[in-house]
């Protein structure tokens, strides 16, 4: 029951994030570049709720984004699912109790997500490859995501531990006892 409520809250949060991204961050930009808070959100789920929930919600949310605003259905789903999986892998290998490691994880995931989406666009839509411009945008976007991560880090920690208790409680017990 607790898990169902948690998933429903995660879905509800996704819609709030969707409206923030598509309304607020389309004008609250750094040099015209907007952040990608979906990456932050899915990595957060992957880190604290585990890969199963991370992948499933990443894929569903990604497909939803593609359906509503995307040009090709699938790529956001695949990439956000991948971020969910990476979240679990990073959780197993690094501590998420440090702000610095979380920031590094966020930067890595932003780069992986945007690189995947851009290369997919270049291949499927026959877009000219503009490496320097892409790197410029990617750097700004990563910085923006990092700034947001710094701001919401305490919230991420508090909510994350609640999420971890809900989804990973049994695993923690078997690991330590």
């Amino acid at each position: 029951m607790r898990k169902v409520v948690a998933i429903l809250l995660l879905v509800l949060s996704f819609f709030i994030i969707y409206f923030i991204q598509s309304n607020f961050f389309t004008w609250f930009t750094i040099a015209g570049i907007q952040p990608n808070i979906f990456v932050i959100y899915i990595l957060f789920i992957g880190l604290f709720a585990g890969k199963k929930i991370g992948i499933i919600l990443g894929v569903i949310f990604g497909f939803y984004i593609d359906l509503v605003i995307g040009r090709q259905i699938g790529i956001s789903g695949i990439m956000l699912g991948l971020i969910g999986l990476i979240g679990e892998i990073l959780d197993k290998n690094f501590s998420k109790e440090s702000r610095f490691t979380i920031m590094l994880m966020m930067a890595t995931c932003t780069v992986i997500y945007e690189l995947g989406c851009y290369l997919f666009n270049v291949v499927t839509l026959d877009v000219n490859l503009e490496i320097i411009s892409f790197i410029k945008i990617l750097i700004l976007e990563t910085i923006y995501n990092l700034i947001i991560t710094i701001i919401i880090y305490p919230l991420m920690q508090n909510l994350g531990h609640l999420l971890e208790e809900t989804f990973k409680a049994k695993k923690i017990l078997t690991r330590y006892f």
Partner: protein
Amino acid sequence: MYKNKKKGIIGIVITILILILLVIFTNTNGNQMSYIENICNVFVMPIQNGITYLKNKISGNDSFFADMDSLKQENDELRKKNSELEQSLRELEIIKAENETLKEYVNLKDKYKDYTTLPADIINRDISNYSSTVVINVGSKDGIEKNMTVIADNGLVGHIISVTDNTAQVQTIVDTASAVTSKISTTEDTIVVQGTLDDKTKLKATFIPTDAVVLQGDSVETSGIGGIYPKGIHIGTIEEVINTNNPTDRYAMVKAAVDFTKLNTVLVITNSGK
């Protein structure tokens, strides 16, 4: 522990301030000095007001505060009047906004009267930094079909790439995947204009014929070739011509006629008579 928590909060506040400043500075054009002056005034003015008040008190120049009761009454009346005026102002603003939208529609209709058009509002914008698509509030129920041309008051916006019952997605001409066959209106030379990642207000004009004379300020419009866009819709003006060692590689930057950042109303050409 307490110290660390306090430090964390200060850090977050500083980061938020830096973020807001970054956003403001990178998106504001010009007039930045007066902006800084305003910020400086915020810090100085309250203290300045306090000092002036004290100065008046000391010099006996405080008769202003003598009749407190009548001032209070006057203040209440003014507040009441102010709220009434604010209410009517709000109503006027709503009427003004409606009027502006209707005017835009009428202007657009007049300009493109040869085409059958359908007005639409932009309801969503692309969340990616690498593409420029928008969603409009008309769909297949309104007779919208894939590949229909979308225009605005100043010129070409793009074309429909997907349709649902009530919405349609438009690929704008500044999108990196967009390529429009067009012509320079003065010389009739055919070129191809494409969106770039660098600047969402400019287009890159390529495939310029080697013998073509391209000048800054030349108007660029659709050629009608390609099967999507009708002939003669204004795209923009040549801003810069970049010559390369190989004349076949030379290109030009075209300033888009439509300001995509402020675009809210568009017209979909439902019957272009292509």
